C-alpha cells in the first residue's frame, strides 16, 4: 500500500474510492432528512389548503366567517359558517389557562432554577417532565370525570363542563412545558450577573427580581407564547372538558366550543368535498397560520432578534 502510493504519488489522491462515494451518498441522504422538516411543514399547508380550497374560493365570506357567531354548517337549507363563537371559546379557555399557568410555571421555574439544588432539583425536574407527558385525552377524561362533579359541587352550577374546567385543565397541561422553557431561560442568564449583584450586597431574591428576571425577559416571554400556542392547538382535552356548545361566553361557568374541538367532533360526519368539510379545513388553515405566527414570534423573541 505504502510503496505503491510512493511510486504513484499523484494518482492516489486523484482516485475516488468507494468510501468517497459512500460519503457523498450519505451526505445527500442526511441532507434529505434535514430538509424533510421543511418539506413536511410545507406539505401540511399545501394539503390542508387543497382540501379547503373549494370552500375558500367558492363559499367563504371572510367577513361573515370571522364576525358571525352563528355556526350551523350542516344545516341543509341555511347553513351558517361563523366562527366568532368558536374563536371566543378557544380564546376564553386559553386566556384562563394562561392565568392559571403563568404564575405556577414562573414560580416553579424560579424555585427549580434558582433555589433548589442537587438531588431535589433533579427530582422536581423529573416530576415536571412527567407532568408534561400525560396525554391530552387523559386530561380530557379527568376534566370529564373528576373536575366536572367537583365544579358542580363547589360552585353549585348545573353543568361542570365549561370554561373554568377546560381552562384549569389546559393550564395544568401547559404549565410544565412553560416551566421547563422558562427554567432554560433563567439558566441562560450568565452566572457572572448573579455574582456581580451578590458582590454588591444584593440578597438572593433581589438578585432574582432585579437581575435575573429582567435578563431572562425574552426567554420568559417566549415560554408564555409557546404556552398560548399550545392552548390554541390543544384538541382532545378541550373537546371533552368545555361542554362543546356553541356559545358566546359571558361567565367562566358557560360551556363553550373551541376551534380545534369543532374539527375533531364534526369531521367524521361530513362528506368529502362538501361545504361543511371545506369549512373545517378552512378552520385548519386558520389554526395553522395562527400557531405558525405564534411559534415564529416566540422563536424570534427567544433569540433576541428584533423586527426591522
Amino acid at each position, binding site marked *: 500500500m505504502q510503496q505503491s502510493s510512493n511510486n504513484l504519488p499523484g494518482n*492516489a489522491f486523484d482516485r475516488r474510492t468507494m468510501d468517497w462515494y459512500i460519503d457523498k451518498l450519505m451526505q445527500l441522504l442526511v441532507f434529505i432528512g434535514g430538509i424533510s422538516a421543511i418539506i413536511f411543514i410545507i406539505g401540511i399547508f399545501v394539503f390542508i389548503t387543497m382540501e379547503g380550497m373549494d370552500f375558500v374560493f367558492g363559499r367563504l365570506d371572510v367577513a361573515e366567517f370571522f364576525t358571525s357567531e352563528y355556526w350551523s354548517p350542516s344545516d341543509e337549507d341555511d347553513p351558517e359558517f361563523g366562527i366568532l363563537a368558536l374563536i371566543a371559546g378557544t380564546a376564553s379557555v386559553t386566556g384562563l389557562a394562561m392565568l392559571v399557568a403563568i404564575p405556577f410555571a414562573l414560580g416553579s421555574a424560579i424555585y427549580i432554577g434558582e433555589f433548589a439544588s442537587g438531588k431535589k432539583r433533579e427530582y422536581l425536574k423529573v416530576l415536571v417532565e412527567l407532568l408534561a407527558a400525560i396525554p391530552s385525552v387523559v386530561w380530557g377524561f379527568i376534566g370529564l370525570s373528576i373536575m366536572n362533579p367537583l365544579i358542580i359541587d363547589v360552585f353549585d352550577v348545573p353543568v361542570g363542563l365549561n370554561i373554568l374546567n377546560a381552562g384549569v385543565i389546559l393550564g395544568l397541561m401547559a404549565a410544565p412545558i412553560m416551566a421547563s422553557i422558562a427554567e432554560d431561560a433563567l439558566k441562560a442568564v450568565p452566572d457572572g450577573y448573579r455574582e456581580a449583584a451578590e458582590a454588591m450586597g444584593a440578597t438572593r431574591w433581589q438578585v432574582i427580581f432585579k437581575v435575573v428576571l429582567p435578563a431572562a425577559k425574552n426567554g420568559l416571554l417566549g415560554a408564555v407564547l409557546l404556552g398560548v400556542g399550545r392552548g390554541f392547538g390543544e384538541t382532545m382535552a378541550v373537546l371533552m372538558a368545555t361542554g362543546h356548545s356553541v356559545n358566546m361566553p359571558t361567565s367562566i361557568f358557560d360551556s363553550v366550543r373551541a376551534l380545534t374541538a369543532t374539527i375533531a367532533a364534526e369531521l367524521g360526519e361530513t362528506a368529502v368535498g362538501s361545504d361543511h368539510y371545506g369549512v373545517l379545513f378552512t378552520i385548519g388553515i386558520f389554526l395553522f397560520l395562527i400557531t405558525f405566527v405564534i411559534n415564529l414570534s416566540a422563536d424570534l423573541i427567544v433569540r433576541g432578534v428584533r423586527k426591522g
Partner: protein
Amino acid sequence: MVTSAEAVVEDVKQPLKLDVRDLSIYYADTPALENVTLDVREHEIFGIIGPANAGKTSFLKTINRMDMFTSNMKVQGDIYFNGFDIRKTRNIYALRSRIGVVFPLPVGLPLTIYENVALAPRLSGVSNKAELDIMVERCLTRAALWDEVKDRLDSLGSLLSGGQQQRLTIARALSQEPDVLMLDEFSIAVDPVTTMRIEDVLKELKSEMTIILVTNLVQQARRLADRTAFFLEGKCVEIGDTEDLFTGNAKQQSTIDYIEGKFG
C-alpha cells in the same frame, strides 16, 4: 526567504517530499504565517522551532488540509506533496491518510484501546483479525505504550491518563503507515523518560517515513532534526542544517538568540 529557498535547491540529497511555496495563512484578516517557502526531503526529520504564535501549528494544519474545518482560516500559496498539488486533490481523505498528525492536546477516541489503533487500518480496508493484532501491537510498542496497556486493550482509550493518551495518539498516527508524520510538541503531556523512548523510536522511523517535528524544546530539535527551520511571529526566519544552526553558524541573529535562550 529567497536565500533559504536557493540554498535548498543547491544540495538536494533526497527527493522532495513536501514542497511549500510562498505560503501565507490568515485567520479572518490577521496573518498567522506569511510567505513561507520551504521543502522537506524524504526520510529526514525536519524540525520547526520557535516561540508561541510563530505559526507552527497553523503550518501543520495546512499540510493535511485541516484548514477546511476552521471557517475563517484562509490559505494562499502552493503546497506540493510528492510533487502533487494538495489543493487539486479529488480525494482529500486519501491525502490525509498518508499524513499522520499528533497535536499537543492528546485525543484518545472513545473506542477501546485496540480499536483506537485498529481504526486507520480498518478504514483502509484491513479486516483480518490476525493482521490487525500485529499492527496494533507494533504501533503500541513503538509508541512506548504496549507494556502498560497490553492486558487491558478492551478498555476505553479516552479514559487513559494524559500521557498515555498522547502515546495512544502517536500509535494511532503510526497505524496509518503514513508517508509523513507530523508531531506538534508531542512531549508536553509525556514524562521525560517516555519522551526519550519516543525520540529513539522516531530516529528508527526515519528509514520508513518523513517526520516533521514541531517542538518548543530547542534541544529536542538538536537531538533529532536533520534540518531545522526557525519560525518567528508568522515568518520563517531561517532554515538550515541543524548542526550548523546549533554550532553558532546561523545566519540570523534572532535565530542565535532564540537557540541560546535569550527569548522564548
